[in-house]
Each structure stands twice: as structure tokens, then as C-alpha cells.
């Protein structure tokens, strides 16, 4: 939108030329200066200036919708009002149906805890037919650490959906709908994301996974912090744009790191922190933390507008991930940036049993 050309806004030729002569070619050029500065630059008569500006603003301002019309449209057109099931019923219930379309859901945790397992599970859920409870679409899996395992995918798939994974023809059909990209640098990652604009509609992409977003964007070099933050911000904007325009669930995995502190978070016992900083934390809509509590692997809802902070134990099995047992904890909502190495438990936390 920032790129929209002044020439295509229905302004008078003469006005367009005047703007161009002062190097104002697109909306961003025009609106990226204060009105006074622009007026000085153009030196136009007041009323034609105001008329031109009104036209530009109108042309760039997005249309509005009422919340009701959006909700009605989604109920009508989308599976589970726009959610991708995680196949973990408890998690699905807490998230009002599963991973939501149109937003960024982040999975964060130490290496080996199960983030990629969940990504594989979600990928399978996306490609299997709607008759089996899936989305019947394609997946774009951006694998920056070469962790995508076809063996593991087959294992999970054949356990969960033997009917589909039993014969070569249907496996082939499904596997061809999983696109795996392996960028090796941050610019390559950005390029891949930009190419997606056309791939998404053409290939009926219904899930975008970036496993992990941190690999190529993390760094220890203090000098690069500003550039890195900027790059991260642009990534976040681009991902949101893709997610929202195409109503896609976007799942990204993130790392943890041992150092650094965040005021107001955790209680000092946690030794691990979510990587990529607070600006990134603002950008993700949902943060699911995979960590260890009382010796068990748990998935905790650390940031989510629609659910309370709960942590549920899980197991990694040949079915992918499964909820372990029939209890979950109601935990502190404060630990958005903290990841527990091994949380010892807190008597104040409520344990909730379910059947």
C-alpha cells in the first residue's frame, strides 16, 4: 500500500507531474513527510494541495468492516471458525478450536523438547482430507535447521491415519503437498517469504511453518542489534500480512537462551529466556511454551488472548504428541518471556482434573 503510485490515484496529470518533479512518486513519499513539509516542498496553491492530499489519503486508507461481518463470514466459510486442530483435545479447547488462522502462533522451548514434533503433527493435519478432519490443503515448511524428518512424518501419519498412509499412491499425493524450503541466510528467508505471495493461492497452501525463525535471525554481535531488530520487525509484518490476507495459520518455532533479564517477568528462578526479545514477543499473537515442570514435558499457554494460562503435560509418542494424563495446571500468566528448565512446582498453582 505504501508503494501505491501517485500516478494511479486519479489525480490531475499536472498535479502528478508536480509531485514527480519533487521526487514524490508513491504514497509513502507523500505521507512520509508532515503536511507542512510537503506543502513547502511542492509550493502549490492551498486548495489544490488539500484536494490532492485528500485524494491520496482516501486512496491509501484501507476499507473498514464491522466486527460482525467478519465473524459471520468466518463462521460461514471456515473450518471450526478458522482453527487448525492440534489433535490435543485439551489444547484445542483452550485455544477455542486449535491454532487460529490469520495469526502467528509461536512454539518456544529448549532443543529436543518437541517443537518440531508438533509442527509435523500440524503439517499432517493440514494435508489430510477434510473427511478425516484435516484441511485438505498444502503446507509450506521452512526448515532452517534441517529437522524435517520424513521417517518421523510417516511414523506419525501411519499411526494416526492408517487408512491414508497405507498405500503408496495416497502417501505420494499427500507428501507432494508438503513443500519444504531450506534457506541458509536471513535474506534467503525473506526472499522465500516474498515468493509465497503467489505460491499460497496457486498451491492451496493452508499452513505456513517456520522451524525455526530464530536460527537465521539470532546473533550475539552487539553491533548488529539495531539491524537485527529491524529485520525481525519486517519479518513479523510480512508474516502477519501473509497470515491475514490468506487466512493462514502461521506457526513459528523459537529458541531459548540462558542470559539476559526482563523486568517484571518470572520470579528469578527461571534460567531460560525466550530469544528474539520483547519486540518479537509483542508481535506474536499466541505463545506456547514447551518446558519441563516437575520432571515432565509440558506445553504452557504463555500468551493468548482467548485462554487462561494453563500448562498441560505431554508425551512424545509414535502418534506424535499426546496429552499425558488427565490433569493440567493453572499457572502464572506472568511468565511470557521465561521458560523453565525444570519447574519445581508451586503450591499456589491450581491443579485441574478432567476426564
Amino acid at each position: 500500500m505504501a508503494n501505491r503510485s501517485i500516478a494511479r490515484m486519479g489525480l490531475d496529470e499536472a498535479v502528478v507531474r508536480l509531485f514527480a518533479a519533487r521526487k514524490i512518486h508513491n504514497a509513502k513519499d507523500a505521507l512520509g513527510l508532515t503536511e507542512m513539509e510537503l506543502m513547502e516542498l511542492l509550493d502549490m496553491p492551498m486548495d489544490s494541495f488539500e484536494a490532492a492530499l485528500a485524494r491520496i489519503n482516501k486512496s491509501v486508507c484501507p476499507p473498514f468492516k464491522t466486527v460482525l461481518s467478519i465473524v459471520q463470514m468466518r463462521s460461514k466459510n471456515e473450518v471450526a471458525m478458522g482453527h487448525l486442530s492440534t489433535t490435543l483435545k485439551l489444547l484445542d479447547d483452550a485455544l477455542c478450536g486449535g491454532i487460529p488462522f490469520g495469526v502467528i502462533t509461536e512454539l518456544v522451548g529448549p532443543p529436543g523438547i518437541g517443537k518440531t514434533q508438533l509442527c509435523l503433527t500440524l503439517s499432517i493435519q493440514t494435508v489430510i482430507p477434510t473427511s478425516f478432519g484435516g484441511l485438505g490443503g498444502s503446507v509450506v515448511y521452512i526448515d532452517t535447521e534441517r529437522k524435517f524428518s520424513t521417517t518421523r512424518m510417516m511414523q506419525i501419519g501411519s499411526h494416526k491415519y492408517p487408512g491414508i498412509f497405507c498405500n503408496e499412491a495416497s502417501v505420494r499425493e499427500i507428501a507432494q503437498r508438503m513443500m519444504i524450503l531450506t534457506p541458509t541466510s536471513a535474506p534467503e528467508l525473506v526472499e522465500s517469504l516474498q515468493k509465497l505471495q503467489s505460491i499460497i493461492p496457486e498451491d492451496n497452501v493452508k499452513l505456513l511453518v517456520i522451524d525455526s525463525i530464530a536460527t537465521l535471525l539470532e546473533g550475539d554481535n552487539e553491533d548488529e542489534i539495531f539491524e537485527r531488530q529491524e529485520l525481525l520487525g519486517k519479518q513479523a509484518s510480512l508474516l502477519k500480512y501473509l497470515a491475514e490476507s490468506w487466512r493462514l495459520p502461521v506457526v513459528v518455532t523459537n529458541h531459548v537462551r540462558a542470559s539476559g533479564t526482563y523486568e517484571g517477568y518470572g520470579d528469578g528462578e527461571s534460567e531460560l529466556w525466550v530469544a528474539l526479545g520483547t519486540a518479537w514477543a509483542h508481535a506474536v499473537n499466541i505463545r506456547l511454551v514447551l518446558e519441563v515442570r516437575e520432571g515432565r514435558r509440558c506445553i504452557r499457554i504463555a500468551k493468548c488472548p482467548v485462554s487462561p494460562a494453563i500448562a498441560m503435560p505431554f508425551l512424545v509418542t509414535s502418534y506424535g504428541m499426546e496429552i499425558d494424563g488427565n490433569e493440567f495446571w493453572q499457572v502464572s500468566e506472568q511468565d511470557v518471556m521465561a521458560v523453565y528448565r525444570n519447574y519445581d512446582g508451586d503450591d499456589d498453582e491450581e491443579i485441574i482434573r478432567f476426564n
Partner: protein
Amino acid sequence: MDDGGSIARLGLPPYLRSKLLACGYSSIADLHGASPLDLARDASISSDEALSVLRRIGATPAPIAGAKTAWDLMSFDRSRSRIGTGCSGLDRVFGGGVASKELTEICGAPGIGKTQLGMQLAINVQLPRSLGGLNGHAVYIDTEGSFMMERVLQMAQRSALVTPDQSVESLLSHIFYFRVFDSTEQIATINSLNKFLEEHKEVKLLVIDSVTFHFRQDFHDLALRARLLNSMAQKLMALAHHHELAVVLVNQVTTKGNGEIRPALGESWSHACTNRVILRWEGGKRQACMFKSPSLPPAKSSFSITTRGIGE
């Protein structure tokens, strides 16, 4: 104003008349445009006498355009409307609720509840005055996709329980949602609001969530950024006054090297809003602190976020 004729027509005492004549003021037209001090000096009369002469020709000093007396402002303050948040402690921090005709900034760390509060206000503004609302509609400008329809639906469902004539559908139909994807769209949308508000006169709340996101990354020239933000703040202030809106601006926080958090967008932005509220965690509970306001003390209160919305 009396335009014609000689000053003899003014009925001035003779000594005044002769002093004026002596320094060249012979007709009423000559007196137009003279300031009391100039006249006093020219004619060697006192400023009171000069004033009385000018009053006779009807040249009473015009009030300074736009100036208001403190009394005017007091009446204005009393009539100011406020929107309840759903938590009495939080309302107290805001001085009774989020005020109309003002810019209120809400900043805080990720996950603390800024968007939740914004969404709750978009519902609450629609409630009748008896329930803390203004019977008004809301405009929500979403700059980072934080607005989740599922959540607003949950909040509307709770509200609809207490207001039988306002159904969930009605509540959702009166929130006008704009999604902007970069700073240019954000600026263009704010510039287009005046017209929108003329056409939708029931809107009494504008939420911009967040005002920060795009401005943190699209700008290298921080001085330009500060000027644009300033210009934006002035426009928002004008909209707030002209259309009697409560304007709520959600801001993010940045982390300093030592882990300390502070509001984003720098020093110059900190002057833009009338009121600034920071949301933070304290003692395991969410707290709101009013830390800048021309009239309210730095109050603090805890609040919570439940499955149905903002609560005590």
C-alpha cells in the same frame, strides 16, 4: 463601530478633545485601529482615558480567539464523559473511566492486556450510561493483527447477558474495524477519520492498537519520525475534541540494556498524550498505574483478565 464624522460627535470632555486634535486625531476614522497605549502616548493622556475614548467609538477589544476562561473549562470538565473498563479499581486509576475528548495512552509489556483493554472498551462504550457506557460506537484501528475476533465475541457474549436489548450481533456490528499494514496506511487512515466520523456520528471511542508497531521499524530518521508522530498526535487531539471521542492509544515497551522496560517511541512522544497509563505485573497480579495526567494523581490498581473480559 461608529465610522463617520468628527470627534466632536463623541461627547468627550473638551480637554480630551483638544488633546486628541492636537496630535492629529480629528475624525472618528482616525481613531480606528489605534491601540489604547499608542493613543495614550500620542495624546499624552492616561490609558484609562484612551480606553474610554475607544469604547465610545465602539472599538471594544475583541476576545482572543480560542481563549477560554477557567470557568469554561470547569464546566467542560464536568460534562466530560467517561467509559468504564469493567473493573472499578481500573476506572479509579483513569479518574472514573477513560475520558472523552482526551488522548489516553496504555502501554505495557507483551501479554499484559493492552489489546484486551482496548477490545473491552470497544464493547463497553456501547453500553448505556447507567452501566458505564456512552451509548456510542467504536472505531478500532488494528496495526498489528492483535485484535482477535474470538475474544471480542467472548466479551460481547458476557455483555449481552446484562443488556437484554443489546444482542451480541448488535454489539459486534457497532465496532468498525480497520486493519493497517504499514505506517503509510496508518497515517492515511487517521487523516481519513474526520470524514468517517462525520458520517458515523455515534462513534465515541477510537482505539489505535498499537500506535507503535510500524513506527518502530519503518523509520531510520528519528527526527522525522518524531515530527510525524507529533503531527499525528495533534490530528488525533483535534478529532477527540471536535467529535467528542475518547482516544485510546496502545503503545509497546522496549527493554533497556539492564532489563528495565519503558514505553516505546521515545521522549518526544511522551508529551503527546494527555494521560499515560502503564500496565505491569506486580506481586503476581496485573497492575495499572496512571503516571502522567494533568489532573489525576498517580493512582494504581490491580485488575484481572477473565474468560469473560476485564474484571476486578
